[in-house]
């Protein structure tokens, strides 16, 4: 579904991604782990071109989205994204946040979009917050609305950029539950996360990134129980205590 070929990203003189080759298959749940500064968020943000890769190619559903002639707005509709800081639209209520994409981008009728929004809000457990504004919600509720907003575009893949890192500990579970539910329904997902327990439970594949490359990859069992690279071992030794 998403294929990256020799992906590089420079920020000025900083070389953040040093050649990423991977293939995310339909229905697969891939969790990207690694120390901070390893380039995992940059990698994720390159997938929908929020960061423009300096070199290399990204192929999404058979289309080279890094081709300068390609209109990435089309593919972004098929790639939902959830941010660490939620990035809900503060001047709109929850329903408007969820419906603005379908209504303005996909030109779906407003009442149809509202029906869809209500269904999605039920799915993330927030049907009673339809009229609320983002600032009236807790962090966990905000993130669940953000997931509903991304799902409203009916994407083929969901990208999660550290979705629980900005949450109070007691709210992490409610967000992970929604993500688990999505995974169990066959959604293709790429998740940058520090939640190792979650990664172990839902991931089909773990990518361990370090210093701009994929240092090691494999099933959760392979990575967590029998890591081969010394750097993977070192990292896991620090985060699993």
């Amino acid at each position, binding site marked *: 579904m998403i294929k990256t070929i020799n992906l590089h990203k420079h920020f000025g003189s900083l070389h953040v991604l040093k050649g990423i080759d991977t293939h995310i298959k339909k229905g697969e749940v891939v969790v990207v782990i690694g120390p901070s500064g390893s380039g995992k968020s940059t990698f994720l943000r390159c997938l929908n071109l929020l960061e423009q890769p300096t070199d290399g190619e990204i192929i999404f559903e058979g289309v080279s989205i890094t081709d300068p002639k390609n209109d990435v*707005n*089309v593919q*972004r*509709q098929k790639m939902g*994204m959830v941010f660490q*800081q939620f990035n809900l*639209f503060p*001047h709109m209520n929850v329903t408007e946040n969820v419906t603005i*994409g379908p209504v303005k*981008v996909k030109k779906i009728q407003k009442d149809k979009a509202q029906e869809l929004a209500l269904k999605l809000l039920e799915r993330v457990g927030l049907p009673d917050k339809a009229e609320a504004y983002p600032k009236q919600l807790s962090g966990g509720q905000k993130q669940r609305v953000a997931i509903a907003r991304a799902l409203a575009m009916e994407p083929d893949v969901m990208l999660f950029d550290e979705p629980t890192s900005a949450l109070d500990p007691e709210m992490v579970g409610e967000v992970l539950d929604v993500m688990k539910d999505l995974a169990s329904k066959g959604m293709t997902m790429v998740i940058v996360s520090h939640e190792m327990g979650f990664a172990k439970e839902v991931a089909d594949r773990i990518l361990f990134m370090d210093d701009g490359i994929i240092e090691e990859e494999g099933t959760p069992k392979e990575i967590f129980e029998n890591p081969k690279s010394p750097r993977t071992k070192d990292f896991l030794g620090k985060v699993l205590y």
Partner: protein
Amino acid sequence: MDLEFLIKYKMFYISGVQNTLLLAIFAVFFGVMLGVVLALMKLSKKKILKAIATAYIEFLRGTPVIVQIYIVYYGLPNVVPFELPDMVWGIVALSLNSGAYVAEIIRAGIQAVDKGQMEAARSIGMPHNMGMRYIVIPQAFKNILPALGNEFIVVVKESAIVSVVGITELMYRADTIRGITYKAFAPLMVAAVIYFIITYTLSRLLGIVERRMSAGD
């Protein structure tokens, strides 16, 4: 203080206030339009647009208004092939000046909106312009409104300076009355009080609007 002149020449003051308000309203209106264009140019990725806007803003903010007014009043009529009333030149000069300040207000307002907002908009497939229109500008507008109101007050005060080229606004009228009555001081005091009433009223109105908007938060 003998205020008898006030009754005799009150029509001078009234027409002066009318012209002052007219100058300020039109100058802010055209200033905002110019400011929006300049702000978008300054935020544009095209280097040439950015350079033009930056040069304009820096030059207009870096030279005295009175010099700009003289340049407009004595310079522009030579290149414009038809005659226009003095008031129009006053409005042009003040708009050109105010536009530079408004541009900076708008640019700052847009940049104050968190970068994640545009990213979220783009990530649901909105093109850049759509993201600006539905997500960024509505939030920027809230940040901008108080500063724009202040700019209006500033323009009301600064409009006094176009009296130097004979535009018959409040300050000019006050001077006229001084000339007729040989009273050096009292007509100016009256003008000052009128200016203050206008600006104070505006700033109170602005306060009310601001409180209304923050109550909606």
